[in-house]
């Protein structure tokens, strides 16, 4: 094997400098569809097995094969999991982007590059280069695998990319000090213990690690060291978490239409339901239907819920807009529905594989006429699981559509988490009258009558055998007894009750998570996947002398504590990933008397927020205020 030591004499950070341990990021720049996902997941899992906090983000194009994709792995001894702007270590495997990828490295950065790149050149002399023997290793590995029958000859091309990616796993393992047993464990995990692929990949990793030990002198300062920060934790995507939540929440019907980034939620639902929700004789306690479009998907959900199922759908922005009429209908006819919106960047197809929090207002107000909904805002994979099951309880308790607003970053990226807790409360099917109750109540029962003072009426399900149990559900005007009515009084009373129901929900939905610091002038407010950047930014701000309180919103409508939080701070920065400050606008609408305290940090470029950005924005504004003499 050719020796390929390439170094740059003037590279800073090389050799003698101080080691940088467990605090850097790696980006693997590859071609979409080339099969690098396995390699990236192996690295993440290995680091995780070493006890080091780690987070993986896939920045992929809207394309199946051929366009560039970047997978970023952040290693953080402090446990930060937000995206970082600076990436120190580049694995360059894509000719299309290599020039720009190298340009983006910080001084002292490291570039591992494939010897198959044609457009590679050492354009900078302030970084460190390592060439990887991809050509030879992957050719030999393929030959060996074909000879041993591990892969078929015809599949050579298909496997080429996957095996080539394993080359950087081996070299990085050696150069960064990743534990080889952790790599082995990761591979076992990755291939669910299937021997042949484990061995095939393990061979390449071992071989290239050995090669690197002999041929690549360490010139850069980046290293990993075992820690004890991941014991007992899991690493998982939000969509998997949400699907599991739904299954443990007793989902019985799901209908969906494929759309990135929501598709994997339905896929995982299908996969785990098949494992967990079949009787010993193979009968299903659920049905999952791939609908002809999103209107049909929500129609099926509404029909199923009306008939008594716990029904859900999952989609993204474009699907949400198609569901508008049904959501308005379900709100007014009071039919439960769980609707996952895994947000992506719009309008229109927009940036379908990039993240945004642009559907907040849309989800909250979706419909026609007067509508407002319960919207759950998971901020972690753990909450994707939790809200995955409680969404059904809320939808049935309130007899109304409930949105779960996740996003691409949360849904499709890999997050470290405490293991999910088994639901603490029994399933809540809400106010459903059985035949006995209907008989007892007789004519007193009215489908849309508020007998408990919380705005929530009682319903009956089709199939209930009791005189008077049946009623007619209609989107047109109706009175308390579900009879057709165009009377203004009936309309007003019904809409007032629906508003009351919404008020009841305020203290019923997941409460915000508040960390209020004694004496802090500044408050921060955020939701969803903006959280990790805000958490990290608070530490940075504290170092700059700006102590902050933090309210992480977990649902709409707002609870009273949101108002209290704003009132308790001179400035509250509302941080969100959209252009028009949707959360800040809602807050201003709801609390006009506090509007002047709100400062919006709304930003959306398709990438997850970074702590640097948030810190910079807050500091700039604080300095401005200080300059203005406040």
């Amino acid at each position: 094997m050719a020796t390929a030591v390439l170094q740059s004499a003037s590279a800073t950070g090389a050799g003698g400098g101080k080691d940088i341990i467990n605090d850097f990021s790696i980006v693997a720049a590859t071609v979409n569809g080339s099969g690098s996902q396995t390699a990236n997941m192996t690295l993440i899992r290995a680091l995780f097995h070493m006890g080091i906090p780690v987070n993986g983000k896939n920045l992929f194009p809207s394309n199946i094969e051929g366009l560039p994709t970047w997978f970023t792995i952040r290693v953080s001894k402090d446990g930060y999991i937000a995206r970082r702007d600076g990436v120190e270590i580049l694995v360059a495997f894509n000719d299309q982007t290599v020039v720009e990828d190298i340009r983006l490295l910080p001084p002292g950065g490291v570039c591992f590059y494939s010897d198959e790149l044609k457009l590679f050149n050492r354009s900078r002399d302030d970084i460190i280069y390592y060439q990887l023997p991809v050509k030879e290793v992957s050719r030999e590995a393929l030959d060996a695998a074909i000879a041993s029958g591990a892969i078929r000859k015809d599949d050579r091309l298909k496997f080429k990319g996957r095996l080539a990616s394993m080359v950087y796993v081996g070299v990085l393992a050696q150069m960064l000090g990743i534990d080889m047993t952790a790599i082995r464990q990761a591979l076992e995990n990755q291939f669910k213990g299937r021997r042949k692929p484990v061995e095939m990949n393990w061979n390449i990793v071992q071989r290239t690690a050995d090669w690197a030990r002999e041929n690549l002198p360490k010139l850069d300062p980046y290293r990993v060291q075992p820690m004890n920060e991941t014991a007992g934790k899991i690493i998982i995507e939000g969509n998997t978490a949400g699907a599991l939540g739904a299954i443990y929440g007793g989902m019985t019907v799901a209908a969906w239409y494929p759309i990135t980034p929501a598709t994997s939620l339905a896929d995982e639902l299908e996969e785990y339901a098949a494992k967990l929700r079949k009787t010993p004789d193979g009968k299903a306690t659920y049905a999952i239907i791939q609908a002809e479009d999103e209107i049909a998907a929500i129609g099926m959900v509404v029909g199923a819920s009306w008939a008594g199922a716990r029904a859900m759908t999952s989609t993204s922005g474009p699907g949400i807009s198609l569901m508008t009429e049904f959501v308005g209908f379900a709100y007014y006819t009071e039919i439960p529905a769980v609707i996952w919106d895994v947000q992506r960047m719009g309008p229109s197809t927009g940036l379908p594989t990039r993240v945004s929090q642009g559907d907040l207002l849309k989800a909250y107000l979706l419909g026609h006429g007067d509508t407002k909904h319960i919207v759950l805002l998971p901020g972690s994979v753990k909450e994707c699981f939790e809200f995955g099951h409680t969404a059904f309880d809320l939808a049935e308790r309130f007899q109304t559509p409930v949105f779960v607003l996740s996003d691409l970053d949360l849904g499709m990226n890999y997050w470290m988490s405490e293991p999910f807790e088994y639901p603490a409360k029994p399933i809540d099917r809400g106010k459903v009258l059985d035949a006995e109750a209907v008989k007892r109540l007789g004519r007193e029962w009215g489908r849309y009558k508020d007998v408990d003072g919380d705005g929530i009426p009682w319903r009956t399900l089709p199939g209930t055998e009791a005189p008077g149990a049946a009623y007619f559900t209609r989107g047109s005007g109706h009175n308390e007894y579900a009879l057709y009515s165009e009377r203004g009084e009936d309309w007003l009373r019904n809409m007032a009750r629906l508003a009351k129901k919404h008020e009841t929900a305020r203290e019923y939905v997941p409460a915000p998570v508040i960390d209020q610091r004694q004496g802090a002038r500044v408050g921060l407010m955020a939701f969803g996947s903006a959280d990790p950047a805000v958490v990290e930014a608070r530490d940075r701000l504290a170092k700059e002398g700006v102590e902050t309180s933090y309210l992480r919103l977990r649902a709409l409508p707002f609870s009273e504590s949101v108002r209290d939080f704003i009132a308790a701070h001179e400035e509250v920065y509302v941080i969100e990933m959209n252009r028009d400050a949707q959360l800040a606008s809602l807050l201003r609408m709801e609390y006009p008397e506090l509007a002047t305290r709100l400062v919006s940090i709304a930003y959306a470029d398709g990438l997850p927020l970074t702590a640097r950005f948030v810190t910079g924005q807050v500091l700039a504004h604080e300095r401005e205020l200080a300059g203005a003499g406040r």
Partner: protein
Amino acid sequence: MEATRPVNGKVNQLGLQKIEYDGSKTTLCAGCGHNSISQRIIDAAYELSLPQHKVIKLSGIGCSSKSPAYFMGRAHGINALHGRMPTVATGATVANHDLLAIGVSGDGDTGSIGFSPYKHMLRRNVPMVYIIENNGVYGLTKGQFSATSDEGQKTRYYGTQRFPSLDMCMEAIVAGAGFVARSFSGDAKQVRELLKAAMAYKGTAVLDIISPCVTFNDEPDSNKSFAYGKANEYPLHEIGVVLPFEEIQVDYEPGTVQQVKLHDGPTIQLRKLEAGYDATSKMGALARLDQAREKGEFITGLLYIDESRPTLPELENLVETPLAWLTEKDTRPSRESLDQIMREFM
């Protein structure tokens, strides 16, 4: 042949009088074809002794779609969105496969805005009776053309139809439906018997019933008018439904009667009026429909029947208990199973 009679002339097998199958008072125009169809639904449900708590009524939006409020007032009903009733029915029948779903739609509701839901419902063989009350116009929005009005057709306010019509029966057969019938609201007996057969059929049963709109499309030159239907209806056969507890009449000439036994027990008897028409032949049905369209014939009857395809709930391989009635014990997997899954992600 009269298929079934109340046990004592007043009550059916459940001991119910026919009036107990009524709904609230209709608000449709006097003489509207849709009203007579509602009456036939009442007749059929009464004669089949349907328990109303086991029935769900569904509809889209239109004059026709209002009608589920006017029959079987003891059954749950849902008046959904324009064109979207098939999707609601899909969800409801999967949620509770014990219920008999009766859907009422219009030609606008099915043929235009609801065309995709209609076709996909048929593909999936959603177990339901799907009635199209076909008047060739949008009644509720005051007389615009629908996709089932024939080329050259004139209406009072919207001039002449310039495009060819869609035939909901042909569309149904092409989409895989196994029960496809056409009838005329003025032919009470045929509508009633077809409804009974449809209610006994296990998959999607389509009934495209020409149902004149007396307000917007009842000029004698309209082939959706009452006068036209009365004068031109051409039944392919005389249909009767024989319930399991009734005796099948056998006094017919060989080859003149076609019998189809449904899985639930009833037998459909078709006494042929057009020799050679075979209701179990898909291509035969399509060819005959095409010919009828070419010649401007108004053929009615059970055009096509085939009960072999599994229904959607059957394909979903569901547990016996309707999903809607499952309890936490059935739908929340164990604590141990979650622990196990969590370990797999460690």
